[in-house]
C-alpha cells in the first residue's frame, strides 16, 4: 500500500513540470508611455531605469511620464489600451517558456496596423518602442515585467 502511494507521488512529481507548463498563470506587464524630448531637462524618478537604458543610445534631456499602467495578460487573449498620440496598443500573451513570456505587440491607429512585433520578456527585462513624434517630443512605449 505504501509502495503504491509512493509510486503515485513519484508519478505526479515527475508530471508536475508538464502540468505547470499547461496551466500557466497570467503574465503581468508594465506599460509606461513616456515623452522624451530635448526641451528642458529632468525625469521622473520612476523612469530612472529607462533613462539609464536609453541614455546609452539617445541623448534626450527630458523624460516625461504620460501613462503608467500594469496589465495582466491571459494566454492568447489580446488586451488593449490607448496610448498617445491617438494610438492603440494591443498586447497578447502567445507563449510562456518557463519564466520568459512571448508577447505579441500591435500598435494601431484607427484600426490600421502600424506595427506588429513579437517580443520575449523575462522578469526584469524591458523593451522600448519609440519613434512617433508628438509635438517637440518623441513617444516611447516601455514594456517591462516586474
Amino acid at each position: 500500500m505504501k509502495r503504491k502511494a509512493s509510486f503515485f507521488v513519484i508519478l505526479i512529481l515527475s508530471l508536475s513540470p508538464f502540468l505547470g507548463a499547461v496551466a500557466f498563470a497570467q503574465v503581468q506587464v508594465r506599460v509606461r508611455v513616456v515623452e522624451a524630448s530635448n526641451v528642458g531637462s529632468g525625469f521622473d524618478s520612476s523612469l530612472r531605469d529607462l533613462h539609464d537604458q536609453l541614455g546609452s543610445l539617445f541623448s534626450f534631456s527630458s523624460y516625461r511620464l504620460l501613462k503608467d499602467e500594469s496589465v495582466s495578460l491571459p494566454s492568447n487573449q489580446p488586451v488593449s489600451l490607448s496610448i498617445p498620440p491617438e494610438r492603440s496598443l494591443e498586447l497578447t500573451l502567445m507563449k510562456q517558456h518557463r519564466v520568459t513570456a512571448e508577447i505579441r505587440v500591435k500598435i494601431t491607429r484607427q484600426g490600421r496596423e502600424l506595427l506588429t512585433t513579437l517580443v520575449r520578456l523575462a522578469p526584469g527585462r524591458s523593451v522600448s518602442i519609440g519613434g512617433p513624434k508628438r509635438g517637440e517630443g518623441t513617444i516611447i512605449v516601455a514594456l517591462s515585467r516586474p
Partner: protein
Amino acid sequence: MKSECSSVSKLLDKYFDQEVTPEERSLVEGHLPDCPACRMALDSMQNLRILIKSPVEEAVEKETFPWVWEKIEKGIQRKERLGLWDFLKSWLDVTPLLKRKILIPAVAAAVILILITAPLLFKKTTSYPSLSVVEYVESETYNVMVYELETPQVTVIWLFEGPEEELSTS
C-alpha cells in the same frame, strides 16, 4: 532357562524387524519352540502390525489427493492472473543478484539522464533573452530599426516616420 528367555525377549523386537545378526537369529529361533511366552510375544507383535498397517495401506491406496491438485492448480492460475501492480511488484522483488544487475545499469542511466537534462533544467533564464528579445517586427507604415545591447540590457524598437505619418500626427 530364565536368563536365556530374558536375553531372547530383548532380541524379539529386532528379530521381528529382521535386524538381528545370523547368530542372534539362530539363538532366537532355537529358543522359540521351547518358550510359549516368547512365541506369544512375537505373535502379538505380528497381530499389532497387521492391525495398524492394513487400514493405512488401504486408505493410501484409495486416496487420490484431489485437494492437493486443486491447490496447486489454483496457485498456478493466481500467478497467471497477475495485475499491473503485482507485475511491477514481482519485477521489483528480484533476487539480490538480479537486483545488483538491474541497479547498476539503472543508476548509470539515471546519471546520464541527469547529465543530459540538467543543463536544460537549470539553464539560467537570461540565456533565452540573450538569443534575441525581438522575434520579429512588421510594419508597413514605418521604417523600423531594432537596437539590442547586452550590457546594459537594452532593447529598443525605433520607428522612423515617413512624411505621410508625420503629417497625420501633427
